């Protein structure tokens, strides 16, 4: 056991946290401090280390270096640590031959709840998640979205001090996403901290106090959401849907262009403050017929990431 030495109490503290895999992937030298009531987002493209970091914080993976403490305790196997964590990992794994309610009952009891409290909270959470009617169905008959909602129920039932969620809105419909945001805001008001790995920029902007950008296993930027958005304040994002590939170098050489990246058949361009989108089309002079649609919009956290790394977050431009 290792006591937290910082005067401000933190629920979770990581320094130099590293998990290196053989093929050179993993997360490296992560520093993170989590206070009660705080909501922190981990954002980055696939393979950036979000899931690995979340697994480390969730005690599901063992670090190869650095320090990590939960509630001042550095033993990840200590049941008193795990009992205060609520976890939703990337795979919504369940006991498929058992019903949704049987699964949730099992996890509620594992995290220390008795029969009466489990029944009361599960009834409420099944109603909230929209799973009431499916509670006695086997999980093998659930859709992916239902399995993820069940996972949320299981992560929330014991009212954890730290909630760790990997892509919580994946496979959820818009209504369920709004319900989740409301629930997590309420939870943070009661003093619980939330860490969510997500590329849903709208979720991150609405919910997170702070965001960590991960790229190739390292935190490349960290800050409060409004601070990060000032990086692209006044800028605009231009999305061009193109019929055939276009050269990005000419675009990037423009002073008006802060960043440019291709994702499928869509080119994302961050324009500097005051720049005119027509300048982009001027560069494409003679090839503008390749452009099938053009959209201009206010930038978001995904654009900050694009500006910093030149890499687009998957699904950030929905």
């Amino acid at each position, binding site marked *: 056991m290792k006591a937290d030495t910082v005067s401000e109490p933190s629920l979770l503290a990581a320094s130099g946290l590293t998990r290196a895999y053989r093929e050179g992937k993993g997360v490296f030298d992560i520093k993170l401090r989590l206070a009660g009531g705080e909501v922190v987002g981990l954002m980055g493209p696939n393979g950036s280390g979000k899931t690995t970091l979340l697994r480390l914080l969730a005690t599901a993976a063992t670090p190869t270096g650095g320090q990590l403490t939960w509630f001042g305790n550095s033993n990840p196997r200590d049941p008193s640590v795990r009992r205060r964590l609520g976890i939703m990992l990337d795979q919504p794994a369940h006991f498929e031959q058992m019903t949704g309610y*049987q699964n949730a009952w099992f996890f509620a009891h*594992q995290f220390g709840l008795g029969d009466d409290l489990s029944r009361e909270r599960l009834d409420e959470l099944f109603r909230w998640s929209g799973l009431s009617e499916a509670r006695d169905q086997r999980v093998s008959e659930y859709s992916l979205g239902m399995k993820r909602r069940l996972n949320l129920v299981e992560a929330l039932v014991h009212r954890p001090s730290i909630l760790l969620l990997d892509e919580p809105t994946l496979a959820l419909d818009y209504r369920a996403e709004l319900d989740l945001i409301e629930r997590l805001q309420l939870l943070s008001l009661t003093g619980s901290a939330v860490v969510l790995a997500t590329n849903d920029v709208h979720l991150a902007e609405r919910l997170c106090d702070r965001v960590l950008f991960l790229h190739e296993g390292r935190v490349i930027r960290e800050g409060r959401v409004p601070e990060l958005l000032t990086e692209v304040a006044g800028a605009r994002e231009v999305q061009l849907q193109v019929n055939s590939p276009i050269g990005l170098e000419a675009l990037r050489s423009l002073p008006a262009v802060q960043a440019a990246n291709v994702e499928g058949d869509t080119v994302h361009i961050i324009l500097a403050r005051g720049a005119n989108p027509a300048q982009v089309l001027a560069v494409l002079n003679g090839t503008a017929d390749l452009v099938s649609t053009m959209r201009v919009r206010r930038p978001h956290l995904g654009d900050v990431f694009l500006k910093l790394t030149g890499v687009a977050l998957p699904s950030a431009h929905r």
Partner: protein
Amino acid sequence: MMLAGTIWQRELVEFAQRRRALIIKLVFPLLVAVPLVLSGAPTIYAAMALTMLAAIVGALGSGAVLTRERQSGLTLRYRTLPVTPGRLLIERLTTNGLIDFVQLVPVLLLIAVRHPSEFAWWPALLLSMAAVLLIGNLTGAVASTLSDSPGEVMLYVVIPLIPLLYLSGVFTPLEQPMLPVISRLLPFSYLYQALLGSLGGQPNLLPWETVLGGFGFLVGAIGLTGWFGRRVLESD
């Protein structure tokens, strides 16, 4: 609806809910045992086949289940439960061993009904059977960490099992001076001796010696299961 709040209860509930698997599991050992016990087959063959049956029943089930759980992400979820890995593995494998034991109870009853005068061997038979089933489950659990393919895991289980059964004197009497000593270090030899005794054959050990051996291996297997907890559940 049956609700389970503990790890062992959950194993039992899931087993009870899978009716088709339940029936197959109960009938399969009987299909092997009925002709052996009821016919006039020499006791050495009957004891050999039943020892192999117990060893395989214990090892194959847990190996395949744990491999599938690793692939589906359930092992990761188990890893985040507020339970130490050793306790978790003991709870799971002893319950699975108990389920395997229930599976073999009809066979044991058949032996008892057919050879009631050999009751002195029954404690030894129960203990050595329990020990072999738990060790089989542990072997399967360890093998599940070696591959992502359930088929390959089966192979990793069976490959060491065959020579170990041979060294236990199950296939043929051990005549080399060292081999009988080695056989006493293996749990299968005690089950084989207990089966020989229960079936009215001529074992090399006395009932109390077999009771001691079976008990020792059962306690040892529980300790070893706890020790392997992290190895099995936290292998990445």
